[in-house]
């Protein structure tokens, strides 16, 4: 997993609430079997004028030049900023893979869909929650100065742009996962004895749970 603790980049403003994972990566790309290769299909329905799927040659598809991801310099942006409830809906981790494959490393929003938020943490994409006013000022800034850099310090919980510094909070365990990029499974397997001891006691207290299905 890509580690992330300090980051600098430019913004992509998506001035909407309730952006769902169906919009972030439509269903036709959920048939793919890998964890990579989704970047070209991020926001597919809005990004292209005609429909397509993983088999459609990209060159044959017309881009919607009015959509933010197709407008320079936003098409090179690495920090997405949106409003309430970003990533709500379906649990598809493919949505985060598409965001990451596009090159986005940080998402700023007023709130996130819970499963999506966790999926971000697992993939080295930092989800940052800011207040409504702060999000509005960032969107405003991105509209006015598309090229300007925003820097983020996850360890300190500080986001800086245009001479302003905003603090944000991130659960210590989330910050740790993002900045150290640890293999969580390896970490959990390290408490394997504890898990097995728990299983033994449950096997006594609730044997019906442990039947072969």
């Amino acid at each position: 997993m890509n580690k992330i603790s300090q980051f600098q980049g430019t913004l992509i403003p998506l001035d909407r609430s309730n952006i769902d994972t169906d919009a972030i990566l439509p269903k036709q790309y959920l048939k793919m079997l890998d964890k990579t290769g989704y970047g070209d299909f991020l926001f597919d329905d809005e990004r292209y004028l005609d429909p397509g799927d993983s088999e459609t040659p990209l060159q044959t598809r017309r881009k919607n030049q009015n959509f933010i991801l197709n407008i320079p310099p936003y098409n090179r942006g690495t920090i997405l900023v949106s409003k309430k409830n970003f990533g709500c809906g379906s649990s598809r981790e493919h949505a985060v893979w598409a965001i990451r494959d596009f090159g986005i490393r940080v998402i700023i929003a007023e709130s996130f869909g819970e499963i999506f938020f966790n999926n971000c943490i697992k993939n080295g994409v930092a989800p940052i929650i800011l207040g409504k006013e702060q999000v509005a000022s960032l969107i405003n800034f991105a509209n006015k100065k598309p090229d300007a850099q925003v820097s983020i310090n996850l360890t300190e919980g500080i986001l800086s742009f245009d001479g302003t510094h905003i603090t944000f909070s991130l659960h210590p365990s989330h910050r740790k996962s993002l900045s150290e990029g640890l293999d969580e499974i390896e970490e959990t397997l390290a408490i394997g004895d504890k898990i097995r001891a728990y299983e033994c006691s449950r096997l006594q207290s609730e044997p019906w749970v442990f039947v072969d299905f």
Partner: protein
Amino acid sequence: MSSKTLYDKLWNSHCIDETHLYIDRHLLHEVTSPQAFSGLQMHSRPVWNKDSCLAVPDHAVPTRNRNLGTAGIVDPVAKKQVERLSENCLKHDIKLIDLTDNQQGIVHVVGPELGFTLPGTTIVCGDSHTSTHGAFATLAMGIGSSNVEHVLATQTLKTTKLKTMAVRFTGTPTEAITPKDLILKLISTIGTAGATGYALEYMGHAITNLSMEGRMTICNMSIEAGATAGIIGYDATTESYLMGIPRVRELPELNRALEYWRTLRSDENAQFDKEIEINLDSLESQVTWGTSPETSVTLDTPIPKAQCSNNTDSSSELERSLEYMGLYGGQTLRDLKIDSVFVGSCTNARIEDLRIVAEIVQGRTISPNLLYALVVPGSGSVRRQAEKEGLDLILQQAGFEWRSPGCSMCLGMNDDNLPEGSRCASTSNRNFEGRQGKKVRTHLLSPRLAAYSALAGKLTDKYE
């Protein structure tokens, strides 16, 4: 001992430490599992407890020609995905209910039917509607593929404790009100992010009076209010449903199990982090007008002109939804012409749902103007039960197509696709842009309204 909520009890009995929750049951389907299995393989890790897993292909499966098995899947990419699930299950010795199995269906319909879903357990699945299983006093949560891999490898989920919210339904609804109306009303009241970070517990007479099918419909859509889990306390209804399942009756130490399950309710004075009350006295049937499940209204309520919903906080967003849906502010939905009707999904494709539709359309014919009118049972067992009751004939005589189980038009990953820009009355759970097909306009409603609307070819709650 201090009073506890049901969520507290479920959490306490499963937390290994502050961040690791033990997972008893794991449901798998073809879409969110391949990457998890590849991850295991990459690190040569075994599955911790294969007996905790059950796999069912449901999302990308065709609803016709089922006897052909995977050979009946036209799309080669989808075919490969379904085959991959079989290969992975074979490799790890995981129980698979495959395409030709007469128990196959949508994971969230199959799990409870087979007694895989048990009270007092934790269940996960790489699917947001896992909350469905909470109807059985079960802590059930949707997870992403990385967590699917984590649970396969460690039997635990890394997570932290949720906050709790009690949702009390008060008052007495009229006979026309169905579980779908209750949950749509809740979502429109608190908004699609209203329960983010919470486990919801549904309470009140209206819930106690519901069948398990109805309770599942409600828990199913908890995620549409932002909740990770939705639960309902164990009672006599839960018990009699479970006792109807052979596999549950045969569980070891059943009497001890029953004794324990009966404690799976929130204690009388349990403190919730938040409580909300929804009065059902004057509730009318709900239909969504927009592109978020929180946009439900009655057939006769004018849809918003200006900023007024919980989460849509700018007029440009409202305009975007109205434009997408081909509607204008101030319009009412009654008699709005529809192109298709879909009765299906893990929300509303259980036997009771099909009975409601059949009862309404019996001896009548659906509108000839409909392009599609599909009934897709939630599982093979639902399908067989419906056929036993003759519902399939009633539905087909009325003009519905009678299909094999799967997610189908709920998300259109298979070949059940709606034409671009068409309008669909759907018993499913999401009306997002493009969910049912490019530019397709989805109105979420109950099976009851879907039936009346199919007959009329427009949104309605009565015979013409």
